[in-house]
């Protein structure tokens, strides 16, 4: 693998992990009785931009390197499900992340007062943020399985 693709893959993994941590932070901060709005907006923006960078770097790697070099090895190897189930699902489910995290960031940014006053609204956003975090963890674990399948 060339240095360029190695950097793309590392960026995909690192920014994905930053996104998971930022999403977890948003969920955690939404539990508080008095919301720290600036910290929440910051964390939600980190999550959105991290997933976006991970999306682009991983997408470029997937398009230009993975499909021609790594995918045939996995599909012809002992663990074809690593690609046929987990990579196929991961690549499409990853497309959901920027949209969902942008929505969370916008609600925090534009409806901060309503969130502060309405515990029911806050709880609903917390549930959404929790499932975004859970999905990010599932995507990360899928990535681990794909790496295992390639090796």
């Amino acid at each position, binding site marked *: 693998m060339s240095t360029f693709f190695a950097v793309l893959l590392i960026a995909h993994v690192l920014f994905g992990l930053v996104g998971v941590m930022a999403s977890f932070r948003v969920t955690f901060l939404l539990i508080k009785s008095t919301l720290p709005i600036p910290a929440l907006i910051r964390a939600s923006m980190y999550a959105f931009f991290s997933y976006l960078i991970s999306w682009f770097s991983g997408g470029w790697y997937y398009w230009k390197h993975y499909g021609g070099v790594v995918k045939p090895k996995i599909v012809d190897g002992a663990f074809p499900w690593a690609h046929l189930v987990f990579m196929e699902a991961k690549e499409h*489910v990853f497309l959901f992340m920027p949209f969902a995290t942008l*929505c969370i960031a916008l609600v925090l940014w534009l409806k901060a007062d309503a969130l502060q006053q309405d515990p029911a609204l806050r709880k609903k956003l917390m549930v959404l943020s929790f499932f975004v975090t859970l999905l990010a963890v599932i995507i990360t674990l899928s990535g681990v399985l794909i790496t295992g399948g390639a090796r």
Partner: protein
Amino acid sequence: MVLDKEICMRKDKIVQGTLVSASITLFFIVGITIAGELYKVADASGKMVNPIKDYLKALHGHHWVGKGIWAVALFIVLSVLFSLVLRPSTDGKRIGSMISALTVSLIVCTLAVYGFFTYEFLIAH
């Protein structure tokens, strides 16, 4: 005071528009993904091809890139459209319902994608 109310209503409409558009975009991604895999026809040589995936690939270089570009375009168009047509909510209930709808969409779409590719591998592969 009037200006504050106007800004507040505009913010409300932007949030509503974005939430509804995100839910629709998620289902669009699932729909085009599953349709792309299931819709197969034989070409002139008798080989089975995927017309939707091939069309996306011809337009954007890769079907996944095409799905991403189409999803972003759909999301932007629908967000603008819904932000213009939806009425601002007087309480937080409508936005709360839209957030819950997005949560349900996220869960259903994730299960649909993982379920579909598991089915494809176990049954159809």
